[in-house]
């Protein structure tokens, strides 16, 4: 498959670009932050997105989705990264939609996917329990209880956990923390007894949650996929999320870089545009190259998720690691090249630096994925 967007995907990109520039520019995120919006995103806007088919971008037509595949989802994520659009797209439309589509039973699908596609239900994926990502580290207990389970433990860094109607949560039904075997995924109502959700306002003005599970009851019907065999299933879902975040960061990097190049052309110092200084030119040219590399890795990861989902682990790690590092560099160079003005809250560039820091941390940073790649390659 050629490593370019199809005409259909390109059209999606263009329409998303126009829509987001108009409806969800950085100023919208700024407003959500400054008004301390309780949701942290605009429910009206999300409804509009759902009407355009974005909420169900990964969902098959049978369940009311647009079925554009991961490349389509990545195209949207990238454009949202350009404008730093706050929305439940990653948590609901990528993570939850993938989990339910790949792991759900027919009744589970029937009960969830159409609602997601319609923008009527919000989801969150709860995996991490410590400051650094690592699904195998999961310690949260899923104890047998009658015909079902009782879940106890603490989750952190749950994106959109504060607004989710339902939570997909990884818990340990067997084995010990550090082991891959013994994980089970559950689909839990956020209002279940024993759940306590604390909204956490993050560096990027987006929202996540810390969630305490205190003997939360789950029946067998709430299990998503196989009991004890959830690790690889979870990895698949996480890979989709990683590729989505990589696409988002690629978009943010491109936008921050574009703003910087424009600034270099406009800003004068010492009697000339600062973009004429060769040291800055070379740094900009190097960054351009790095961004091109990140774009390639991201597109390939999305294509591979569509073409052979189960084998996309390495390429998703590549995309997440590379896009994360490149986006970080792009945001750092952006602030430095903008000088003092880049440090002010009034200017938008800081929002990019903050969002990129959060996005690169989520589901494993570059160090995590480089290590993972090395392990997969046997060294």
């Amino acid at each position, binding site marked *: 498959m050629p490593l370019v967007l199809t005409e259909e995907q390109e059209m999606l990109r263009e329409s998303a670009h126009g829509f987001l520039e108009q409806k969800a520019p950085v100023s919208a995120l700024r407003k959500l932050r400054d008004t301390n919006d309780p949701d942290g995103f605009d429910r009206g806007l999300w409804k509009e997105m759902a009407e355009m088919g974005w909420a169900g971008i990964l969902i098959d037509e049978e369940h009311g989705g647009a079925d554009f595949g991961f490349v389509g989802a990545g195209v949207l994520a990238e454009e949202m990264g350009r404008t730093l659009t706050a929305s439940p797209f990653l948590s609901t439309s990528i993570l939850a939609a993938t989990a339910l589509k790949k792991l759900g039973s027919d009744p589970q699908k029937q009960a969830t996917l159409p609602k997601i596609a319609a923008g009527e239900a919000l989801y969150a994926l709860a995996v991490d329990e*410590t400051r*650094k*990502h690592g699904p195998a580290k999961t310690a949260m207990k899923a104890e047998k209880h009658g015909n079902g389970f009782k879940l106890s433990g603490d989750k952190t860094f749950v994106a959109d956990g504060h607004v989710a109607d339902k939570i997909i949560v990884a818990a340990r039904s067997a084995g010990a923390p550090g082991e891959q075997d013994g994980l089970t995924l559950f689909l839990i109502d956020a209002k279940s007894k024993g759940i306590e959700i604390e909204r956490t*306002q993050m560096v990027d003005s987006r929202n996540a949650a810390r969630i305490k599970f205190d003997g939360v009851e789950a029946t067998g019907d709430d299990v998503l996929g196989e009991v004890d065999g959830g690790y690889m299933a979870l990895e698949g879902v996480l890979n989709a999320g990683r590729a989505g975040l990589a696409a988002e960061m690629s978009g943010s990097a491109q936008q921050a870089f574009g703003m910087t190049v424009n600034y270099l052309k406009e800003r004068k110092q010492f009697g000339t545009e600062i973009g004429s200084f060769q*040291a800055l030119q070379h740094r900009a040219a190097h960054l351009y190259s790095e961004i091109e590399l990140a774009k390639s890795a991201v597109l390939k990861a999305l294509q591979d998720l569509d073409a052979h989902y189960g084998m996309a682990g390495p390429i998703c790690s590549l995309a997440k690691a590379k896009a994360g590092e490149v986006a970080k560099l792009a945001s*750092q160079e952006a602030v430095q090249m903008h000088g003092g003005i880049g440090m002010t809250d009034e200017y938008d560039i800081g929002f990019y*630096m903050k969002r990129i820091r959060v996005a690169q941390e989520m589901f494993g940073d570059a*160090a995590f994925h480089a290590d993972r790649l090395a392990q997969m390659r046997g060294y």
Partner: protein
Amino acid sequence: MSDLETFRAEARAWLEENCPREMRDGAGGEENICWGGKRWQFQSEAQKTWLNRMAEKGWTVPAWPKEYGGGGLSKEEVKVLKEEMRKLKCRSPLESFGIWMLGPALLKYGTHEQKLHFLPPIARGEIRWCQGYSEPNAGSDLASLQCKCEDKGDHWLINGQKIWTSYADESDWIFVLVRTDPKATKHTGISFILVDMDQKGVSTKPIKLISGKSPFCETFFDDATTPKEHAPGVSAIVGEMNKGWDVAKYLLTHEREMISAGGGGLLGGRGMGEVAANDIGLENGKLSDPLLRAKIAQAEIDGWAFLLTLERMKDEAKAGQGVGANSSMLKYYGTEFNKRRFEILMDIGGSDELEWEGQRTKDGKLARGWLRTKANSIEGGTSEVQLNVIAKRILELPGA
């Protein structure tokens, strides 16, 4: 007993007797600084007592001449005094831009009358000064500044805008670089002038940074005035008219040296490796995040070598060796390293330190600190300017 030892004994005795208990906690944080000034609210009676006693002794500015409110101490005596204060954990009685910046400028470029008029109130913490250098469209190119200063017979008329004026909203007076000769080319035609901020023509507006609240302000001059002489024989202009660039350059070098000397605080607190071992944990005796471990190990090597370089440069200076422009190198490397260090601390912190608000992170203390470091390589001369200086002055590479 040598003179210096006698001085040490006397200083210690005086400090023991005069430094209030509450001022002996070694607290150095920004929130405990006594800045002085007309609007200053002492945080405690002890803070006030301590300032007054030290000011009376001339020890708020121990190296300044006695006639200007200083202690008249020699370099060696100042060192001894600081050592004794450190031993007793005495807080600094007073900090200010008057002490750090204006004082040295006046001592070097001011007339005797200017010194007599302006230095003692600084030493006593009565007047709080701020610095008006940068302008919104000047950035690194300080010489391109445009703030206009016109001769109106008995006074000067000032119009323009300054940016990054730290604590301008809490200060009483400002020392400003203004253009007194609009026809002159860039470096000439600039003067260094002293202005009372308590007038309608001067207003300030705080700047919010990406890290949150900051001491920085914008300062606006709209038909602001300052008399030609603040008192008989006390000119508002420091140094020669139209030669303020010399004063500014002197202060910039001074500032760079202060920043680079401050590098000692770089590795303050626990090392990155120690923090990581504690927060992330070990596996087979090694940090369980091997790529992060590699990053930390490399950074610790550079950080240690940098601290040794600070030490070596100080020792070289003492030995009368060394290259003046090395302060540019230290400023460049130190600030870039500090940015790198905070990136790593954020990596170690992981999602826990990404909470911008709330008790757990003290409202995102580390994250705000991380973002704040991004300005290190911009303020006080950007990294690019420092590299230019190294290339030109140390390596003597040709101009473009």
